[in-house]
């Protein structure tokens, strides 16, 4: 009986917004060892309206690196230990098709959060998320049509592609937590506003898989957690 009340009390406290966000920060850098596969140059000659937007041809983005072996587009998030967050985020996340490229290459959003897909090109794209846990759908978006509004219900890393332009690949990372970050070209990430607690931090890279580390923070701690992926040469 007593324990039950305790749990109930804890539960209510955990749901109050004050405890969802604290003052601790976890930050770090994502790097790789070894030699990553060389990014391939994309031939857009079949889509002249896109090709002309890239005076220098662009390359595939499955692995994007920076100086000193840093890795970009790595999704870092709290995969365990974070308090449940009952409400979906209210702000939409925008995913843009421009120059036959996905900008950004990886987005993160929460279940139920609005995804806005924008076509800024003079060509039709089809947005085809190859979801396995969520629903797989496939919608055409001709030039000049309004943004598509969609959402996903469940946690999943969903590859998204355009069948008309086979070089277009991206990812939707649907995450339960709002404590996430996506590394930039310099490989750094920052998870601020964390309440005290023991967390599992997961770093995900589309070709190199996931890595996890446990870390405990309290008060306004500032801790550093770095991840190193082993590059695949092909």
């Amino acid at each position: 009986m007593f324990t039950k009340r305790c749990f109930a009390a804890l539960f209510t406290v955990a749901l109050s917004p004050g405890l969802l966000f604290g003052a601790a920060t976890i930050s770090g850098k994502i790097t790789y060892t070894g030699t990553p596969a060389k990014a391939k140059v994309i031939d857009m000659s079949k889509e002249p309206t896109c090709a002309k937007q890239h005076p220098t041809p662009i390359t595939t983005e499955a692995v994007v690196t920076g100086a000193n072996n840093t890795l970009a587009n790595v999704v870092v998030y709290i995969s365990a230990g974070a308090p449940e967050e009952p409400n979906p985020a209210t702000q939409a996340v925008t995913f843009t098709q421009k120059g036959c490229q996905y900008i950004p290459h990886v987005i993160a959003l929460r279940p139920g959060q609005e995804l806005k897909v924008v076509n800024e090109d003079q060509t039709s794209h089809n947005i085809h998320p190859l979801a396995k846990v969520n629903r797989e759908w496939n919608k055409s978006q001709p030039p000049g049509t309004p943004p598509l509004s969609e959402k996903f219900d469940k946690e999943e890393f969903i590859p998204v592609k355009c069948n008309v332009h086979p070089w277009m690949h991206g990812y939707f990372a649907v995450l339960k937590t709002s404590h996430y970050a996506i590394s930039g070209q310099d490989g750094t990430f920052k998870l601020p506003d964390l309440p005290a607690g023991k967390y599992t931090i997961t770093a995900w890279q589309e070709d190199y898989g996931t890595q996890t580390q446990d870390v405990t923070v309290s008060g306004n701690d500032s801790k550093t957690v770095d991840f190193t992926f082993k590059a695949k040469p092909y």
Partner: protein
Amino acid sequence: MRTTSQRLLKHFALAVLFSVFSLAQEAHVGNLTGHAASGKKLYRRFCVGCHGPLGDGNGENAQWIDPKPRDFTAATFKCRSTPTGTLPTDDDLYNSVGRGFTNSNMPHWDALTNQNRIDLVAYIKTLSPRWQSEKAGEPIKVPAEPAVTIESISHGAELFQKMECWKCHGPQGKGDGPSAATLTDSKDNPIRPYNFASGADDSRFKCGSTNQDLYRIFMTGVDGTPMPSFADVIQPKDAWDLVHYLRTLQTHRHSKENDVLKASGGKIPSKAPESNSPAPSENKGSGN
């Protein structure tokens, strides 16, 4: 300390769960009711060779088959009356079993009775957990077809350019557009876009042979394949015009559309070319 009401609640929840589960083991079309238990026996006899014992499309014949047998565990279906991403209705699945799939190894199951087919549908719906947590989508409404005129055919031809159908289906609908060679289905198997010019008079579409079926395809998309849904971006009248034009691409097929085209001299009148719709250079091919 657990109260009686809590215990009752638990039993009630279990009962609800159980009844939902057993409902999912049934299928309904008209006044037929299909039962998964009967469907399972039929499945093991007629379907297992291709679709596999688990329903994942990995039956022993699957390696010889192109396109691959459907994976029922993913519950992604090509021929639906429902929006992209949603589950099909029982009618949709029932019709697919009866109709078979043109240009694939899936025959039309004339040998099975109507009761057999609906039993199979009920069993197929036990192969993915999605059927327990989701309802079928709301069927897309197909408005009455307007009259076929040379104007509707001509406008359809413009839309074929504007919506860039030719990128995959080719400038003359022969399935040879610039993106055709790179297309893959959702399991990364190569897949060809529909060739409208293929076949003789009975050339059929995968999901039915009427103009209504063709209209529905734009609106639902063909899930699991590169063909997207245009429901958000095409008006019903425009979709009908496109249907009328596509029928004229089936050059060997007798149709009212081809009759109208012939009566107008066999040529689609073209408007002044729009600057933003690139004329595909492949247009000049001899046609074969």
